[in-house]
């Protein structure tokens, strides 16, 4: 299936989870994940299934005001 990770189109196998998406981009802690604008706790990465067309955001700390 095809999903978007930080707006980049990515092809993953049909039973992929959030954990697969995180591994695909080699995300380095600390980071957090949302799927289709819904927060996914890190305790659920391995059991949260992805669907074709899902939009995944992986975000990390930066400076801010």
């Amino acid at each position, binding site marked *: 299936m095809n999903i978007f990770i930080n707006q980049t189109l990515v092809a993953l196998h049909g039973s992929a989870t959030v954990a697969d998406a995180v591994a695909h981009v080699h995300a380095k802690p600390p980071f957090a994940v949302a799927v289709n604008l819904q927060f996914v706790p890190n305790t659920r990465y391995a059991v949260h299934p992805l669907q074709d067309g899902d939009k995944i955001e992986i975000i990390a*700390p930066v*400076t801010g005001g």
Partner: protein
Amino acid sequence: MPSTAPHSPASDALVLYGQTFQSRLLLGTSRYPSPAVLEAAVERAHPAMVTASLRRQGSNAAETGSSFWELLKRLNVPVLPNTAGCHSVQEAVTTAYMAREVFDTPWIKLELIGDDYTLQPDTLNLVEAAAQLIRDGFQVLPYCTEDLVLCQRLVDVGCQAVMPWAAPIGTGRGPVNPYALQVLRERLDVPLLVDAGLGLPSHACQVMEWGYDGVLLNTAVALATDPVAMAGAFADAVAAGRAARSAGAMAAQDTAQPSTPVLGTPFWHHDHG
């Protein structure tokens, strides 16, 4: 001489959501010339909290993410994550959840932008976002305008402090609506922190003299010629304004009053005409 100590810093701490802070200055971490300057500025200012944000991994903003993370840990100052750049309630709420997990904190500076040009908060949806986050256990510090009714509604839904702007973010114009800010201070009895738009230490001192409980700023320090010195200047100004508020200012007079005693003045009422 009798001892007079009406203002004791130790007993005049800032209290937000039951947590005590020894400083009334909150400092942003963005736009500094270098991480080293940021670190030195924080060490000079001793802020109550430092703000941080979240961006996509792999983006330019996050390229130095790991080093920033290490710097944050080294600073050992409480982190106040923000929801900068969010334009909807759902975006802000989701970002807050992500920030809570990453930074391991219930604090959130709630930013919900309604206009990209002025970065004015979305006043019509801010209360809904705040209410949801309060229900979910966050300690929300909402960035808002100086609108009295908006601020009251934020308090009504559980915000224990409110952060009105002085002017649009990054402008450094200082308080553009002094009347509204002073009325807001008179009408609300929760902690109020001025967030955004301050450019000079005198701006910070001014709002503290009006009775504001603290200030949050970033650009005024980060873009100064000497950010570290400016961080110290703002810290001193915030403390001076707070001390002046506690000391109680004299009432302004319409006519001159001699400060030197008149009795015994030599040559009094000599006619020089």
